[in-house]
């Protein structure tokens, strides 16, 4: 390439101020010697000069008002709705835990938890995402905050837990969004097993508020990666779920021949098939209701615990039924809102499920921490303090969820223990 061609290729960037000072100086030197390039620059500047200025644009009278009049009611996307559901639930479940009567029950339990086991138990909780949460024996206090079908699962799990209770403690569930783990892998787990591999605790998606944490090595799971529909997760950026249909722009070359190749705008639904072809199962979002038995024949996702107990159902949490699975939340202005669960969802990995509102954290300023762990703080409250705290949370539209068989190491009867994740 000749020197002229090299500099000619830089002329536009030179005109637009996109060159470094050294490059611009080189172009200036070349311009002083090249009549063709001088002519190009002069013509380009003349064109620029002839373009109208923004300030010359006349805005029609009442344009802003007409825009505002045309605005539709704000349609909250399912993701935003989902966040609205998940965050309060997460705050609740993550917030507290374990409490009511457990100390008493624990004291009366014929099985004494050894110091080693107890320590492993706490370590396991930390590894599992920070805090114990309602699990096999844990049910949210307020049924409104849990899908109607979820308590059934809890009940089932609780029954199984009760079955195990004679000889072992049940592992707490943990709640959070997970990108990799499958619900229903494993079931109840023994404390003794937990002590073996607390750091390898597996998490399951927490879309519904409560999922499980299990030490990985204690679960015998046939490995069929990506075949469990509930484990299909997609990195947030790849889902396109929150993208505005109006902003969908396909690059040149991917559009139809008769369409504007530069800025083809296609409805969101039309883009999904192109962007997320079925060939890549690892990035496919499978809505509930489309779990299709043909893709996941019986047995492929079979999971069993080491002690031979029945695993939890594969489809956990259960498919929501529009109009049935409704949760009651407090709206921004305090009014009650009935919100249906979205028909499909994905992991909300961008949601900070463990983050409590600052005002919620402030409520604990009056109490001295009883025990600190890597993932949170235990507070020991008298029953009166606990009731008062519960009322404060209720005023904030949240609740304290009790349940789970986790306790701080210094737990003693007569006190309520509240875990606040950090």
């Amino acid at each position, binding site marked *: 390439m000749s020197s002229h061609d090299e500099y000619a290729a830089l002329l536009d960037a030179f005109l637009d101020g996109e060159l470094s000072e050294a490059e611009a100086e080189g172009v200036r030197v070349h311009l002083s010697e090249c009549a063709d390039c001088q002519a190009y620059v002069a013509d380009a500047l003349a064109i620029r000069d002839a373009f109208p200025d923004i300030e*010359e644009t006349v805005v029609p009278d009442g344009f802003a008002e007409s825009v505002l009049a045309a605005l539709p009611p704000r349609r909250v996307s399912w993701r935003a709705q989902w966040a609205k559901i998940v965050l309060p639930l997460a705050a609740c479940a993550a917030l507290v835990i374990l409490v009511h009567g457990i100390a008493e029950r624990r004291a009366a339990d014929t099985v004494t938890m050894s110091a080693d086991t107890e320590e492993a138990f706490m370590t396991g909780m930390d590894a599992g995402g920070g805090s114990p949460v309602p699990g096999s024996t844990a049910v949210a206090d307020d049924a409104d905050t849990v899908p109607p079908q979820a308590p059934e699962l809890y009940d089932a799990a609780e029954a199984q837990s009760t079955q195990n209770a004679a000889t072992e403690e049940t592992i707490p569930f943990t709640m959070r969004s997970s990108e990799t783990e499958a619900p229903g892998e494993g079931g109840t787990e023994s404390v003794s097993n937990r002590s073996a591999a607390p750091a390898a605790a597996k998490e399951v998606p927490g879309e519904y508020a409560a999922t499980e944490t299990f030490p990985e090595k204690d679960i015998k799971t046939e490995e069929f990666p990506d075949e469990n529909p509930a484990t299909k997760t997609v990195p947030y950026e790849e889902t396109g779920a929150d993208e505005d249909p109006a902003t969908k722009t396909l690059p040149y070359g991917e559009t139809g021949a008769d369409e504007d190749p530069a800025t083809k705008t296609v409805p969101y639904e039309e883009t999904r098939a192109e962007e997320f072809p079925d060939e890549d199962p690892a990035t496919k979002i499978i809505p509930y209701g489309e779990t299709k038995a043909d893709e996941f024949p019986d047995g492929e996702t079979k999971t069993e615990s080491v002690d031979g107990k029945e695993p939890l159902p594969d489809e956990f949490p259960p498919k929501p039924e529009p109009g049935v699975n409704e949760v009651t939340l407090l709206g921004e202005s305090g009014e009650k809102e009935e919100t249906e669960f979205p028909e499909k969802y994905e992991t909300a990995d961008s949601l900070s499920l463990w983050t409590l509102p600052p005002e919620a954290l402030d409520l604990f300023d009056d109490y001295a921490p009883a025990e600190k762990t890597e993932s949170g703080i235990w507070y020991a409250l008298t029953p009166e303090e606990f009731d008062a705290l519960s009322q404060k949370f209720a005023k904030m539209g949240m609740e304290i969820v009790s349940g789970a068989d986790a306790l701080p190491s210094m737990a003693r009867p007569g006190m309520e223990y509240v875990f606040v994740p950090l």
Partner: protein
Amino acid sequence: MITDFTTTQERELLTNAARGNRDAFGELVRRYEKKVLALSNRLCGNPEDGADAAQEAFVSAWRGLPNFRGDANFSTWLYRLTCNACTDLLRGRQRRDTHSGPSLNDEEAHTDFPDPAPSPQEAAERRELREEIRDALRQLSPEHRQVLILREIHQLSYGEIGEALSLDGGTVKSRIHRARESLRKILIERGTFPAANRLREQERGAAYEQS
């Protein structure tokens, strides 16, 4: 070059608008209506379609604000919505020949040049050149028209144009070069530039000073 810093006040407006505050969104509309209309008028070819596309762009912004994460400037994002709205509008209406292509022949296009003291002859020559450019722009492909308008009218950097149109920097650079070359070629074939020779001489000196 215009640099669009999102001020604290604007961030607050964006946050409130994303939460559904129409007053906040109305303020944003007033802040950007001129820029958006300047773009949509030229892309659509006439003020009526431009206003429709601009309104559609703002409505899209209203819908999309809850998901706007601020990765790009709000203005750049808005330009992108505007480009898409114009494309949809033009495609949907199967543009008639008389209205196709960008228009610089709007009412405002005939307003006096901002030059503080152009002579009557200079003003006339510039108006003539402007109309020639308007006609020449019609012959450009939509993608060339877009990059030139975003660059010359909105003075976006290559990076901002890339963000607005979802193009990489190399593509933006090549499109701008081809767009200018095409436009220049059309104007030379029409004999337009000889009429503007005197202006060119003046601008040439100014260009060296600016660079």
